[in-house]
């Protein structure tokens, strides 16, 4: 937290958690997805479900999924904008286990046929955390440049990724490692201090045992 979390953000109202946070979760999901969202299923949990409509949580999420910022004046009209752009969306309810009251599960797909599933939570003041990606646990805010590396759960993946980053002069700020089952799929969530260049990401993806690398930098 810094002083611009106290005075700020500039945002479309009415609620930093239910409106700005929701837009931000949508926007992070869009960036993680890496292509335009053509279809979205949006499942609201807890307070997002109970008071989301009155707070414009629904419209903010759709706006975020189209890449709109939390201060974009088009947020209240995002449904109409989505219709213009041909983006389909539907809402549902979900009861997430151990879910934070302000949580949402997003299932998005794009023209390429790819899909992504994200669970996001709005922790207050417009700040958010992503708590799940494609069914695997995670925990990051998107405030720092973040790499999400999906890999086979085999020895050596972590050291190969950290070595590549080190050689590219990129410092790791935090690193989390999660997996679904021993020897199955795993995910590394790496928050870094510097922006990661495209060739470095391609290089990581070519590594043995690495399935997919997603890069998130909200400043771009």
């Amino acid at each position, binding site marked *: 937290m810094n002083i611009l979390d*106290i005075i700020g*953000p500039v945002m479309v*109202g009415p*609620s*930093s958690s239910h409106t700005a946070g929701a837009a931000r979760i949508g926007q992070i999901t869009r960036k993680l997805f890496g292509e335009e969202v053509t279809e979205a299923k949006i499942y609201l949990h807890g307070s997002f479900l109970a008071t989301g*409509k*009155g*707070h*414009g949580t629904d419209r903010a999420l759709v706006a975020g999924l189209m890449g709109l910022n939390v201060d974009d004046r088009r947020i209240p009209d995002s449904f109409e904008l989505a219709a213009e752009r041909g983006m389909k969306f539907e809402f549902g309810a979900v009861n997430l286990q151990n879910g934070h009251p302000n949580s949402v599960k997003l299932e998005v797909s794009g023209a390429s046929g790819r899909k992504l599933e994200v669970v996001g939570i709005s922790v207050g*003041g417009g700040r958010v955390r992503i708590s799940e990606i494609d069914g695997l646990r995670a925990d990051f805010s998107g405030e720092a440049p973040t790499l999400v590396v999906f890999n086979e759960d085999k020895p050596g993946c972590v050291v190969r990724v950290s070595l590549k980053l080190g050689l590219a002069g990129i410092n790791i700020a935090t690193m989390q490692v999660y997996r679904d089952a021993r020897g199955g799929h795993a995910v590394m969530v790496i928050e870094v201090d510097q922006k990661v260049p495209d060739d470095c990401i391609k290089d990581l993806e070519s590594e043995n045992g690495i399935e997919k690398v997603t890069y998130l930098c909200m400043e771009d």
Partner: protein
Amino acid sequence: MYESLGDICSRAEEKKITFWEVILEDDCVERQLEREASFAQMKTMYLAMKDADASYDPALESRSGLTGRDGGKMEQYVNGGDTLCGDFIGRVMEKAVKMGESNACMKRIVAAPTAGACGVVPAVLLAMQDKYGFTDEKMTEALYVAAGIGGVIASRAFIAGAQGGCQAEIGSASSMAAGAAVYLRGGDAKAISHAAAMAMKNLLGLVCDPVAGLVEVPCVKRNVSGAVVALAAADMALAGVYSRIEPDEVIDAMREVGLSMPACMRETSEGGLAATPTGIRAKERLQ
């Protein structure tokens, strides 16, 4: 961010600089920025507040229908020149209502420290700029003062209604505005801290009880009370009146009060105004 108003005052005295410069220097260290870059960002926030005030639409209503059209009524009433509180306080109240309504109606505002309390700081600052003709740069300095106070409150207590009730939102905003107002009128760091403390003391215990869970009733009008209390506290501090309880201890008391509040008084909409027959009817109508 600083965790103590006392530490900010000591730093200001030690380095012979003002309250706002202490906050600016700390921000530069924390976010690894040049002074100019930090200042430009804070100025953007002030200009966004001005823009939000100027963009008020008197015909606007919120989607729930619970909010709207009161800003225009206040403006007309104050234009009549015959308010009980006088022209200046009248303008402050008008701006607070307008900003609160704009927020409820999904317009662009600046959270300060939250969206629900977004009317307090700009109502005080914009009205003071109109009255005294301060430059935008001077107003930006005042915003650093507000941010510094808010940072201490966020560190020692909380700024979310769900955690500490409305005292944590409107109370914090009022505290921030009071300190900023004292700075603009030439008060020193001690007077700034004590104005912040006196504003908070006057709003201690305020519960968060939004009707139907929406940032509308009573949030919009509480922005008015937060702004008026801020100016009253600022005037006391400028008169040399100080809080008998140390400012940092007042913030700690706000935390204690917040922690002892039952859940129904912390944004769950299960108590207070939300649980009145009218409040419940509004909720049912919206479901």
